[in-house]
């Protein structure tokens, strides 16, 4: 083992190995309760040091040949205990973060594998953009733009539908369930959903997507005909008429020409929604489901 030749490599090596050495020293102290001091000069003449409990005290003891303190005063013991527990907390925290980092890295590898797998199916549009030809790119661009439109529409519907939560101020909207019931699982993130889809791919059943008549805000993404039970709020939605609803709550069920009146009629009917235990209308036809 000799000194490295390459200057820049040497710098990098010093940096990495110094860090590794300090890590090993730190572990030694934690595991075995030892005291330590390391002093090292860098190729650039800077000085790095690691010490536990601290560099200076260990060095002083070395220089002065002091024997170890046989019995410590209560104060010192207390502060040392406290410091030890701080160190212990930090160690625990570090272990936790390292664990998270590890699983995130594994996820990264798995995601890369999935990409490789789908690549093998021969979808040319999944190749890097640089490898595609002009006609391919043109077609791809069109499809991407379409997709973007679709997603934007979906997103705007969702965020539009959530606004009334804020206005109405009751938790009853939670019972409405702003979703279309076709998710695999609300709580799964995209990654797990996709994995599940991979697994369930050939069990996929079209008919699983069933209408959710409890949507009051006209989320007619699937062209549900909710039989006039729920009005198409998309068109009529304005903050003012929400207030009208409150005002009109005690009105009769009149079929007036005024659209606002119609909405208050619906509002009365859907008072049963105030019960949070289910999101479906209390009296609906059986073929809704």
């Amino acid at each position, binding site marked *: 083992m*000799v000194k490295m030749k390459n200057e820049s490599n040497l710098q990098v090596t010093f940096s990495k190995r110094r860090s590794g050495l300090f890590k090993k020293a730190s572990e030694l102290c934690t595991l075995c309760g030892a005291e330590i001091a390391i002093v090292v000069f860098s190729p650039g003449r800077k000085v790095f040091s690691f010490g536990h409990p601290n560099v200076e005290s260990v060095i002083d003891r070395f220089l002065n040949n002091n024997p170890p303190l046989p019995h410590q005063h209560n104060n010192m013991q207390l502060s040392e205990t406290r410091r030890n527990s701080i160190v212990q907390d930090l160690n625990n925290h570090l272990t936790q973060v390292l664990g998270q980092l590890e699983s995130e890295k594994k996820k*990264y590898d798995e995601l890369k594998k999935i990409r490789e797998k789908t690549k093998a199916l021969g979808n040319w549009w999944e190749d890097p953009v640089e*490898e595609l030809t002009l006609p391919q790119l043109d077609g791809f*661009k069109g499809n991407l733009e379409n997709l973007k439109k679709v997603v934007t529409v979906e997103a705007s519907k969702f965020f539009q539908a959530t606004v009334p939560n804020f206005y109405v101020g009751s938790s009853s909207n939670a019972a409405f369930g702003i979703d279309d019931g076709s998710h695999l699982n609300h709580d799964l993130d995209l990654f797990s959903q996709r994995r599940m889809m991979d697994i369930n791919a050939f069990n996929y059943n079209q008919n699983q997507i069933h209408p959710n008549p409890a949507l009051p805000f006209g989320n007619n993404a699937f062209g549900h005909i909710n039989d006039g039970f729920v009005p198409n709020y998309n068109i009529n939605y304005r903050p003012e008429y929400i207030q009208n609803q409150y005002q009109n709550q005690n009105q009769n069920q009149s079929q007036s020409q005024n659209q606002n009146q119609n909405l208050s009629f619906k509002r009365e009917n859907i008072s049963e929604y105030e019960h949070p235990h289910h999101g479906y209308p209390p009296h609906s036809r059986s073929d809704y489901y």
Partner: protein
Amino acid sequence: MTRQKVKMAFIENETARKSTFKKRKKGVLKKAHELGTLCGVPICVIINSAYEQNPEVWPSRETANQVVSQWKTMSVMDKTKKMVNQETFLQQRITKATESWKKFRKENKELEMKNVMFDCLSGKTMVSRIEKTELRDFVYVIEQYLKDVIHRIEILKRNEESSTALVPVAATTTSSVMPVVEMGSSSVGFYDRIRDQIQSTLNMKQTTKDLDLNKKQW
């Protein structure tokens, strides 16, 4: 190398602690030696333990004295700039690890979104199945990818103008092979989509063999 992951905490068992101390002390000194030799730098290690009355000094008292006296000559600023103890060192490691974790998380999110995007395009899934809260990020990812595609188109168009075709023109109807993005439900079943798609790519593969050869490995 190690069979079990050691819990990073004070070892209560005295025998285990003593043997761990011996082994790890040996390891630390070995690493210190490698660092000093490979990089040609002055270094010393001083260890106080319950197992020795006097401090253990490495490499030797003489060398250690030299290093320490040189250390003493340095200004307080220079000394303390790169000085760490357990608390500060662990905190540094935590910060670094957290940043690395965040980077990976972000990268993974983008990869996930890309996968979902490709699945939507190939008909494996539908936009409606995506968790609503993810939609905004999803739009962003699509937009970024779209930017790349448009940029690439511009480059190719510029090349075409400036010289004769540099890129091999794809033989057949490529855009008709790619399933068109539809909204919401589909009367064409999942099976049919995949079957059609695989069929068409098989047809395509025969006619665009030279393209395959140019494909880089990711």
